[in-house]
C-alpha cells in the first residue's frame, strides 16, 4: 500500500515539485499537491510544507502563509498526531504557526547561502530519522537567507532534555563546530521535532539529495524514515 504524501502549495512555494518528485517518482509513493486555498487536506498520511518564498517572504518568512486557509487543517492534522515535515520555508511556517518552538532569523552573514553542508543526526529514534543512526553525518544542501535558528534559553534546554534536536550542522567528521555553522543557528540547530514527535522542521533540503542522478542521496533517508514509520501500524 502506498503512503499518501500531501504537499501544500502556497503562492511562492518553489520546492513543491521537487518534494513531489522525490516522494512520487523516486520513492514510488502517492504524492499530491494541495493548493493553499483548499479548506481540507483530504485523505493524506503525511503533510509536507515545502521550501520556497511563500508570499514572497514579505513581512517575515512564513508569517503570511500561516494564515492560509489550508493551515487550519494542517494544525488539526498535526494535533491529531499526523506527521508533518516542514522544509526550509516550511520550517519557518511551522514556527510561525506555533507548531514548533523558536524562530529563524537572518543568517549571520546577512547573505543567502546555498551549498552542501554536513548535518549530524542527533536523534535517530523518530519518524523522520528512523532510517539513520544516531551520530550519522548526512550531506544535504541548504539554500536560505533566514535559517539562523533562535530560541530562548528555556526552550533550548527543553529541546536538549527531550531530545527534540534532530539535526545539527557539523563538519565532515561529525564535529559540531562554529566553523561548520553556516548561518549562526544556536547550538548549530538544523532541524527540530515537537514534543509529540510528529511535527519536524529542518532548514536543509533533503529532497535535493535524494536522486542518484544528482550524485547525492543522503537526504533520501529522511523520506525513507517517514515511509518506514508506517509499516508497524499497517501490520
Amino acid at each position, binding site marked *: 500500500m502506498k503512503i499518501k504524501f500531501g504537499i501544500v502549495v502556497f*503562492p511562492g512555494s*518553489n*520546492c513543491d515539485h521537487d518534494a513531489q518528485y522525490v516522494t512520487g517518482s523516486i520513492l514510488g509513493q502517492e504524492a499530491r499537491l494541495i493548493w493553499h486555498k483548499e479548506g481540507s487536506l483530504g485523505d493524506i498520511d503525511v503533510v509536507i510544507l515545502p521550501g520556497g*518564498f511563500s508570499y514572497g517572504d514579505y513581512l517575515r518568512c512564513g508569517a503570511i502563509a500561516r494564515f492560509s486557509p489550508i493551515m487550519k487543517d494542517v494544525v488539526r492534522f498535526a494535533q491529531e498526531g499526523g506527521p508533518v515535515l516542514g522544509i526550509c520555508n516550511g520550517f519557518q511556517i511551522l514556527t510561525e504557526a506555533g507548531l514548533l518552538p523558536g524562530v529563524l532569523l537572518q543568517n*549571520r552573514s546577512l*547573505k*543567502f547561502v546555498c551549498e552542501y553542508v554536513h548535518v549530524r543526526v542527533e536523534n535517530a529514534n523518530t519518524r523522520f530519522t528512523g532510517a539513520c543512526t544516531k551520530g550519522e553525518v548526512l550531506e544535504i544542501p541548504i539554500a536560505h537567507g533566514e535559517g539562523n535558528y533562535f530560541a530562548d534559553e528555556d526552550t533550548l534546554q527543553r529541546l536538549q532534555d527531550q531530545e527534540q534536536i534532530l539535526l545539527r550542522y557539523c563538519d565532515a567528521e561529525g564535529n559540531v563546530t562554529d566553523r*561548520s555553522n553556516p548561518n549562526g543557528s544556536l547550538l548549530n540547530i538544523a532541524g527540530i521535532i515537537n514534543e509529540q514527535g510528529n511535527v519536524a522542521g529542518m532548514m536543509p533540503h533533503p529532497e535535493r539529495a535524494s536522486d542518484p*542522478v*544528482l550524485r547525492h542521496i543522503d537526504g533520501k533517508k529522511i523520506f525513507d524514515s517517514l515511509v518506514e514509520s508506517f509499516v508497524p501500524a499497517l501490520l
Partner: protein
Amino acid sequence: MNLTTSLSEPIVNLNLALEHGLSAEEYDRILQILGRVPTYTELGIYSVMWSEHCSYKNSIAMLKTLPRSGAKLLVGAGAENAGLVDIGDGLAVAFKIESHNHPSAVEPYQGAATGVGGILRDIFTMGARPIAALNSLRFGKLDNDRVRYLFKNVVKGIGDYGNSFGVPTVAGEVYFETCYTANPLVNAMAVGIVEHGNVAKAVAKGEGNLVMIVGSSTGRDGIHGATFASEEISEESEAKRPSVQVGDPFTEKLLLEATLEAIKAGLIVGIQDMGAAGLTCSTTEMSAKGKSGMTIDLDRVPLRESEMSAYEIMLSESQERMLLVVKPEHEVEILKIFGKWDLHAVTIGRVEKGNRVRVYHHGKLKADVPAPSLVLGEGAPVYIRDTREPEYLKSTRRFDPETLPEPEDLKKILFKLLGSPNIASKRWVTRQYDSMVRTNTVDFSGDAAVIRIKGSRKALAIKTDCNARFVYLNPRKGGQIAVAEAARNVVCTGAKPIAITNCLNFGNPYDPEVYWQFKEAVIGIGEACRILDTPVTGGNVSFYNESPEAAVYPTPVIGMLGLLEDIDQALSYAFQDSGDDVLLIGRTGGHVGGSEYLHVEHGMVAGDAPDLDLTYERSVQELLLELNKRGLLRSAHDCSEGGLAITLVESCLGPRISRGVNIEAQSDSLRPDFWLFGEDQSRIIISCAPTQTREILRIGREREIDIQTLGTVQEGSRLVIKGLLDVDLEEARRAYELAIPRLMGEIDEVSLT
C-alpha cells in the same frame, strides 16, 4: 474620433523630438508616416520604439550576416521572444541572453534583479518553464568603493530574484577590468523547456479577439528605460534612477504558473511579455506580426498610481506584466486562472482589421499609429555606420613578448594568478545563488553547468563566455574565440554544442572605432558559428556602454547551449583517481598576448589575441566527444585564463577534494613562463585510466590532433611540475578561495572545506 492633445501636454516639435533622443531625420520621417505632427503620446511611442534598444537600428544589418538557421532551430532568430531549439523526444529548449547594464550602473540591486525577471518572462512567454538561469558580469577593480557597492548589490539582486522565483542560477562568469568601472555589464540568460505542442507565439490576430493585460498593475517606474539604455552613462545618469524598474519575483512566480496554465489549456492566441517600452512595444509588435490592428482603452489598465497620463501608461516599464490576445469565449477561463493566482487580468481592447494601433484615454483618442512603421524589420530605421580601425591597435600590436623580463619565481606568479579575481574562485558569488532548486542541477562548478531533463536520459550543458581582452586586441579573432571557448566549455562536460544566443556589449555606435569593433566581432562570431555548426538563435545588442572616461572593452558574450544524450556520460573537470594519466589535447605555442599573466605580472593588456584555427578547434572538440563516448575519459577541463598551470591547479582542487598531480612533461622550445601561463586556444586537459592512454594517443594520431602526455594524478595534495613548480594545494586553495572575500573585506565568514 479626432486625435486630442490636452493642454497639460508639452507642444510637440523638433526640439522635443531631439530631447526624446530622436534625430531630426527620424522626426521628419514620423511627420511623413503620419502626415501630421504626432501627438505627445505618439512622440513617446516612436521615441521608444525607434530607440536603439527596441529597434536595433544600428546593429540589425550586421546581425543579419550571422548564421541563423539550422536543422534544430524551430523559430528564426528574433522571430519570437527567445530562440527555440529542438532536442528530441518532443521537447524544445527556449533560451536567450539580455543586458541590463545601464539600470545596474545607477541602481545595481533593482537593475540586476529586473534583468533576471525580464529574461525569465521572455522564456515563459513562449510556454517554456525556466529550468536554469545564467549570467555574465563585468565590473571595475575591487579596490574601488563604488565598484564593490555595484558588485555586491548586482549579485544580491540576481540572487534574490532567481532564488525567490525558483529557478536555479547555475553558471556564469565575472571579470574585473578598469574599463568597466562606471559602466558595469550585467547580462542575464535564461533557459526553459517546452513541449512542441505548447509553444506560444507573440502575435495578435483574429479581428474581434480580446486584448488583455495580466500580472502587476502599471506605475510610473521605468518610463523611458529603453531610451536611457540607448545613451552613454554620464554624470546626469544618477538622475535617471527613476527610470529603473522595481522587481517583484513573487508576482513573477505567480505569473509564471498562471501563464503556463493558460497556455497549456490552449486559451492563448498570442502573448508577449512587457519589457522595454512596456505596453507600447507589446501592442505594436504583436499587431505588426499578426498583420492586424488593435484598439486599446487605457482607462481599463490597472494602475498603481493616480493621474497617470496616456503617455506615461504607454511608456511605463512596470515589471511582471504580460499582454494576451484571446478569443472572446475564453475570457472567463482566463479570468479564473489568473484569479486563482491572485493576479490582475483585464480586457483592455480588441484586435482590429488593418494595421493601426489606436490608444484611447478618458474617452479621447491619444494615439493612432500604423504598427508596422514602428517595429524592427519593417518601418524602424536601419543604419550602417562608418567604421575606422581604432588607433589603440597600433600600440597594442607593437608588443614584443621577448622583451618581457624572465621571472625568477614562478610559484609567486602562480599564486598571484590564483589570487587575481579574474581567476580566483567565484564561490563568494555562486553561494548566494540557489543553484539547485528544481533538483536538476548535476554540476554547476565545472566548465559548463549540466542540467538533467526529468523523464529522459538527456541533459543540457550551458555556459556564458567572453574573453573581452582578446576582443579588444583583435575584435574578429576575439569574436571567434568567444564562440570557440564557449563551445569547448560545453564539450568538456561531454555535451555537443548545438546553438548560441549572444549579448553584444559595445560603446557608442556613432564612434567609427567602436563600430569597427562591432562589425569585426560580429564577423568573427559568424565565422566561428558556421564552422562549429552552432547557429545564432537570437540575443541582444547593448550599445552606449561608455562613461566620460572611455568605452568598455568590446564584450560580445556568448550563451552556448549543448546537449548530452546520456546523463551518465557527463564529465567533470576535476581529477578523479590517483594513478590516472594526465594528457593535453592541442598545441602549445606560449602565446601571452592579452593573457592574465601579462596583465597581473607585467601590468599590460597588449599584443594580439591568440591564434585560432577554427577547423582545428572543431576537430579537437569532436575528438573529445568521441573519446568520452567511448568511455575513455575521467575528466576534461578547458585550458583558458592562466594557461596550463592554472588549469592544472583547478583540476587538482576540484569542487571539494584535492588530488595531487605530478607533471613530467617539459617544453624544450618555450620560456617556462610562456609555457606555463600562455593562453593558446583549442587546448583541453584530460585525465584517464592509465590503461586507456595508448588508445587515446592512437585516436589522436589517427585524427591528426596533438595529444601530449603530461604526467599522473597523485595521492596527497601537491602539484609538482618537474623543475619548475612544487606547490602545496591546500595553500593554493586558500589563495584561490579567499581572494574575493578578502577584497570584499569579509574574510571571516568563509569556511574552508
